[in-house]
């Protein structure tokens, strides 16, 4: 199962929950399952997040393949200067 953690700012959309486990082959599939449980997350996941997969940060790419035991951390969208 893919382990998914959310950063604190998303807890307002998930009834305070921040740890999940899904069977999902891509980040996209993880997003779909999260949105199914918490529809309020949809605009956030569409526009405002980056995702770290086993430590590698993906700023936009959601069709990244995931290992069965992958660890995802959903972060805010990052911006530099």
């Amino acid at each position, binding site marked *: 199962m893919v382990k998914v*953690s959310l950063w604190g700012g998303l807890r307002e959309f998930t009834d305070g929950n921040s740890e999940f486990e899904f069977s999902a082959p891509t980040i996209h599939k993880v997003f779909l399952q999260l949105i199914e449980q918490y529809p309020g997350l949809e605009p956030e996941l569409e526009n405002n997040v980056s995702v770290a997969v086993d430590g*590698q940060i993906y700023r936009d790419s959601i069709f990244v393949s995931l290992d069965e035991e992958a660890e995802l951390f959903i972060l805010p969208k990052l911006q530099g200067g």
Partner: protein
Amino acid sequence: MAKIDRLEKTDGFRVVGTRPDRPDGVDKVTGRARFGADTFAPGMLIGKVLRSPHPHARIVSIDTTKAMALHGVKAIVTAQDFGEVPRAHKATLHNVMAHGKALYEGHAVAAVAAADVSIARKAVKLIDVEYEILPHVTDVDAAMAQDAPLLHEDNFTSGIDPKPEKPSNIDSFSEFGHGNIEDGFAKADIILEREFTTEAAHQGYIEPHACLATFSEDGNSEIWCTTQGHFLVRDTCAALLDIAESRLRVTASEIGGGFGGKTVVYLEPLALALSRKTGRPVKMVMSRSEVFRATGPTSSSSMRVKIGVTNDGKITAGDAHLNYQSGAFGGFIAMLGAMCAYACYSLENVRATGDEVLTNRPMQASYRAPGAPIINFAVESVIDELAGKLGIDPIDFRLMNAAKEGDRSSYGPKYDQIGLVKTLESARDHPHYQAPVAEGQARGMAVGFWFNFGGLTSISLNVNTDGTVTVSVGRPDIGGSRAAMCQMAAEALGIPYENVRTIIADTSSLGFNDTTDGSRTTFANGLAIIRAAQGAILEMCGRVAKIWDIPQDAVEWVDGFAKPCGPNAGDFEPMGIAEIARKTAQTGGPIAGHHEVNAEGAGVSFSAHIADVKVDEETGCTQICRYTVVQDAGKAIHPSYVEGQYQGGAVQGIGWALNEGYIYGDDGIMQNPGFLDYRMPVCSDVPMIEAKIIEIPNKGHPYGVRGVGETSIVPPLATIANAICSATGIRMTQIPMAPPVLLKAIEEHKKG
């Protein structure tokens, strides 16, 4: 498929790692280079902005009758000239032009286009605006008070559950961390808690904002402007003026610095709106005062940091709360600061929370590693104080607690390959740190962290008929990226550096490119160029296979030549790129390579700084006597430019630490909107910054490149504060540590 000689490599470079002359050097030193204000168009008008003299005021009415009656005035635009925009662009539009309320002194209220600058200035003064002055707030803590004047009646803090029932000036809250902070502090032998403040610093680019916009009768339009991201200018202006992106072509001028401050639009939509109204080109250039009052700066802040440690030097818990002032519109800088707060450390129990706070100040803009230097000042000051209490060398203390591969970062994910330990060890072993401290001086150090980014990238690489190569990229060259692009293309193709020219193409010539920010350009453009070169090489091998009448997989590319390979390839003289290029008409037409990618895998970076300072206890003036930056570049494509990035970041950090800062009066008006009173460091203020490049290849890039543009501004504030503490025994908790501030602290310290 043809074979290509070592497209991905971490050693054995021929061009990469050398220091050729910069391709834009002659134009820049001769004054030939064209910056934002250096272009003209037939029939061009001059645009000027009327700005609010009040920090917070309701706009009751705007009467343009007298201004429009002035001979030579062609058009005036106000908020009424802009329609509804998508939610994502609302703050940008309302910052570009005040809608209903002026939210800071300098906020644009109207813009004029006139025949010349003199008429435009007169016209601005003839616009009659009736204001209802409202109470204002410019201080971050005052803005959070229950009775603070509200900037936006409809602002309910996001990021907290349950959602607040009352509006406030706190735009958003963010929280990062893991473990149990109370348990961590319970295990500590020493707990230190300190509060810090920092003032806003401007990015301080020498070139003010400038643009020339032309809106044609056929609906097509063009903008020439100084920007870090002309694709961003295109998309934003298209949204604000409700025009198709394909109808707007934006060309980036040469840029005289940006540092994050030119990642937003200010004048461009106004010039375009004025051009649409007049049918004439409109040029606009900001004064320095306008730059200070209406653009940038970074956040001011108040912070609380609490760290617990055992007597043997293990950090058991780190806690921090950040209040970052984000100007009149919301931001994300406190969030980034909270993410970076403890990123250098391997902690079982950590928490960092941040509030973005609205005030009657200009909308904050990114400034080189946005948010990170501010909290780094606070955390690294406490770390330094703890090292002192424990009697452990500051670098050894950091090494004992340094984050490593596989550790969970304080902002969430586990670290992939990182080079913090190597960076700290290199700093410890550096001749600067090993040298005894000179008499009358004192030493400080700090370490900092920053993310690096990749992003959307589209490039084109054309092989010309003489065998030279032109590379078109879509990100403005701020820090010398054209040289690095030429080097990587030359390396991949196996041709001389001098045979490659890189240009910055306009928005109609390439697919979307993310802005030059986030330390992304050399990483992402370079990755795409190497892939595009690969495509061109395969095409050239195919052409040669035709000429030799052998299969394409019997041709290999080695050091810039197509050669036969394999037992049945035959015996042919190697064919160079010039010869292949000469035959393009006969072999199938022009040869080019392209690559379009969302470049991921940039990799985070760390920087360790060492400073020797001398403090004049009679004046409170701090002199930087020696300063060293140690940082991982992955692979330095052009080491001089990498050193320049390290040096530039350090000097900007030194200025922020010692002098720079917005000063507001009780009237909410900025008191120092000019370089005489907002004092940036000049050459005589700093020694030659020593730059030590570490190269731990980034596996996300074919040549190992890691971004280097931002991390170097993160540690200087704390580095200098720690050195001042060593010199005076005073732990400064306020930035800037300007002479009057430090002198006062010294005098109070002497009184006991």
